[in-house]
Each structure stands twice: as structure tokens, then as C-alpha cells.
């Protein structure tokens, strides 16, 4: 499995699209640096102000969209010129190939999140914040956003294997991602909408009683449940796909 992962990473590394990894964090940085900081008041940590601003655009839009594009990228070169049949005629199981592609995506999303963490820190340093960096809270947000993206990545991987075209999975991704902006403002709908979870789990103003910014039962049912459905559908579909 490590061998497949190395091969996958090699193929992806050599495609220029890898630069897309930097888009999300750079946009975050840009928003953080140019936006007028919201006055969070005296009693709140200075760092919260860029966090609120940056997180919204980043978590509702760019994180889901870019992770979806990544899923399409790592399937695109398999679709293009018979890559699937070449890959699957090697001594590998389809299960491992699927798992490896998923694992690589999840690692890349984690990498994006860490870059984003760097962007947050850079904003603070450039703006000369004096308050201590709220490390635990930021980590919660970074890891939370990562976990919440996992089901979306699973769905995008499934769709990217299913559709040869680059546009189809992207369209589905956009269709589900755009309503997030509305969903996060809805108390009734927001907690159940999988695409709204990256924002909810990165929302530093959320409840801090639990490990993450959303309650455990919401994490398990909405994030865990949608992950299970999307992942299994993709996994089973790939097992049966005639090549």
C-alpha cells in the first residue's frame, strides 16, 4: 500500500495542478491582510478578528471546492489514456487503490489546513498582534475543518471515478457548496448539512465544551454518517466498475 501511495504521489507531484494546494491559504491570507478588522472588543483575543473573517470564505467555499478539484485531479490522469486498465492490471487490489487515493486526498487537505494555519499566523505577525496566539482554539479549528472535509472528499472521489469528465464532479460540488452560505445561518438546517460542517467545525466562536466546535452527536451522525455513506458507495462502485 505504501508503494501505491508513493506512485500516486509521484503522479500527482508531476502535474502542475499541485499548485492549487496554495490557493485556499493564499486567499485566506489576502482576506486577513486586506479586510477591515472587525472590532472584537477589549475582552477578546485580537487573533479572533482575522479568524472570523478568514474562516468564513475559506471554510464555506474554498476548502470544499479545492478538495473536490483535487479528487478530480488524481482521477483525471487515470481516465485520460487508459490509466485505470494499466494500473489495475498490476498486482494491486481495487480496494487498496481506492483507499490509497482517498488517503492521499485526506493528507493533502491536512497539508492545506496547515498552510492555512500558517496564513493565520502570518496575518497576526504582519499586523503586529500582541495578544498570545490562541493555539488550542486554532488547532481545534484546523483539525475540525479537516475532519469535516473527509466526507466531502469521499463523495468527490466517488464522483470523479464515476465521471470521465472533469466538469461533472465539479458541478455537483458547486451545487452543494454554494447553499452552505445560507445553511450556516440556519439554525434548523445548518447542523445537518454536510457541506456546512467544515465551517461549523472551524468556527472559533462555537461551543468549546466539546473537543471540537460542534457537539459530538452532530459530529458522529452528520460528519461520520455522510462519510460512511459516501465512502462505501465510492468503494463499492469502484470494486464493480468494468474497466
Amino acid at each position, binding site marked *: 500500500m505504501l508503494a501505491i501511495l508513493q506512485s500516486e504521489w*509521484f503522479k500527482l507531484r*508531476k502535474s502542475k495542478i499541485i499548485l492549487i494546494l496554495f490557493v485556499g491559504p493564499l486567499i485566506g491570507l489576502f482576506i486577513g491582510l486586506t479586510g477591515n478588522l472587525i472590532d472584537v472588543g477589549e475582552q477578546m483575543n485580537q487573533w479572533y478578528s482575522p479568524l472570523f473573517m478568514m474562516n468564513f470564505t475559506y471554510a464555506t467555499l474554498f476548502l470544499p471546492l479545492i478538495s473536490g478539484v483535487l479528487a478530480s485531479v488524481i482521477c483525471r490522469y487515470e481516465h485520460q489514456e487508459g490509466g485505470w486498465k*494499466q494500473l*489495475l492490471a498490476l*498486482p494491486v487490489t481495487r480496494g487498496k487503490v481506492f483507499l490509497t487515493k482517498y488517503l492521499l486526498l485526506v493528507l493533502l487537505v491536512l497539508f492545506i489546513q496547515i498552510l492555512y494555519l500558517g496564513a493565520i499566523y502570518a496575518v497576526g505577525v504582519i499586523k503586529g498582534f500582541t495578544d498570545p496566539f490562541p493555539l488550542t482554539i486554532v488547532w481545534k479549528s484546523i483539525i475540525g475543518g479537516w475532519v469535516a472535509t473527509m466526507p466531502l472528499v469521499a463523495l468527490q472521489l466517488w464522483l470523479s471515478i464515476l465521471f470521465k469528465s472533469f466538469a461533472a464532479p465539479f458541478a455537483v460540488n458547486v451545487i452543494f457548496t454554494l447553499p452552505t452560505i445560507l445553511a450556516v445561518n440556519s439554525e434548523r438546517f445548518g447542523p445537518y448539512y454536510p457541506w456546512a460542517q467544515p465551517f461549523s467545525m472551524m468556527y472559533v466562536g462555537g461551543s468549546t465544551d466539546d473537543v471540537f466546535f460542534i457537539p459530538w452527536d452532530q459530529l458522529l451522525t452528520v460528519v461520520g454518517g455522510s462519510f460512511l455513506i459516501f465512502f462505501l458507495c465510492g468503494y463499492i462502485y469502484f470494486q464493480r466498475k468494468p474497466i
Partner: protein
Amino acid sequence: MEYIIQTKNLSKKFGKELAVNGVDIRIAKGEIYGFLGPNGAGKSTTIRMLLGLMKPTSGKVAIFGKDLKSERINILKKVGSLVENPSYYPHLTAKENLEAIRKIVGVPKTRIDEVLKTVRLQDAANKKVKGFSLGMKQRLGIATALLNKPELLILDEPTNGLDPSGIIEIRELIKSLPEKYGMTILISSHLLSEIDQIATTVGIITKGKMIFQDSIEEMRMFARQYIKLKVSQHEHAWRTLLASGMKAELEDGHILLSDQTDQHVAEAVQLLVQQGISIYRVEEDKKSLEDIFLQMTKEELAG
């Protein structure tokens, strides 16, 4: 006998269409097996099933004496393959393409230069495959198939798109492999001339059915000469010959005598003349392999 590939009643249905119908392939070690059939005969579909890319609707595949279903991974470690048009990653160079595969099959890096040299692609090693000609892509595909030093090489129409000198080159390469490395090779083609020059065993498939499977010598036996008679009332003439115990065939209004000794021909002619049948021509007719192939596939259609 121990077979490298043995299938039993292998079948594949697409909807209602039986693309592969009860095929029994037997390939012994060290053979170059020519898998011959016209377009759409079911060659690629069969090969896909041999590699586990497609599940058979029914039937069994055993490779190296092991069941493909339960030991696919162990089998594929010793197989190199090229299915249909060559597969490649367009954004990578030839070398990088091989490297992506090498990481999985786990052979030393030096092997990449070896196979590139074998298919004479070393000059284009660092070019993006996107810009390759079809022949160059085909060579890369063969290089990829050779990468893991396979014991069994499965090549689906490997000379597709090669120029004449390329065809000869690849043919010589393929021919040398069983001797040099003890490889067994399955090579498919829709050109009989191609298979004739390379194979030791031949399997002919048409409309999903295997209609012939034997050594190339046995196949060439079909190419024996005939004496061809052009006569009036050919139906009547043919029956007359058969009635007197002579071997004769009727084809396209001609009578074909397979026993071509002078005496036999003389007897046949005499018999026909006595029956009042006019004889217009008596000539020798050598059937080419192409004719046999056409005939075999036609018979299958009629039957």
C-alpha cells in the same frame, strides 16, 4: 500437461450480447500463442478477463495453475500486459511513466533504462508522452509490460500503429523473449500474416467463439493445395464424384479435389466426362492462410 494459461468455458455477456462464448484457451509454457480474430471477435474482452479487469459472466481462468479469482495478486506479479491501445499518463515523460509503475512492481531503477533500451526509446526518455507518435506510445506500452520481467506477457495488438521496420523490430524482440527469458507470450492480432510469422500456437476466435486452436503447423496444413475444376452442372458433378467415393468439395461453383495425384485427377476427369459433364478448366489452387481464415470464420457464421 501443465498450462500457463487455461480457461474453462469462459464467457462474457454485455446485455444480451455474448461477446465471449465458452472459450477454452490452453497455452503451454514457452509458447508464443497467437490469438487471432477479426474486429469485435472478443479478443480484448477475453484478455481483460485474463487480467481480472473484467469479471467473467461464467467460466474459470487459471494462470500458472492457480485460480485467478483467489490468487489474482500473486499471479499478476509475474504477468506483464498491454491491453488494447497503449495506456500512459500524458503529463509524464516516458521515464516518469515507467517510474510510476516501477514504484508499484518494485524492481530496481536500472530496469527502466533497460526496458527503454529494449524498445529503443532511450532518445525520447525525457519527453512528455503526450507528444509521442502512436508507434512510440506502443513501444512505451511494451516497455511497461516488460518492466517486471514477467513470466507471462500478454500483448493485445502490440504492433498496431508501428511502421514496417518497427513491426519487424518488435516481432524479432517478441520472438526472442521465450528463449532468452523463458517467457510465455499471448499476442493478439487481427492479421493472420502477423501471427503466422511469430506464433508457435494459434487460437482463432470469431463472434466470441474459439473455432480453432492448435499448433501453427497444424494450421498451415489447411493451406494444402487443391486441384480446382470448373465444370458445367457443378452440383451434379460434385455428387457424381462423391457417389464414386472421391474426396471433393464444392465451393463457389468450383469443385475442389484435395487428393491431387495425377492418377486421381485423371480418374475424376474421366468420370465426369463419361457423365456428359463439360470440363472447362483444371487448375491448381493454393489457398493462402488468409483464405483459410476467411473460410473458417465464414463457416462459423453459416453454422
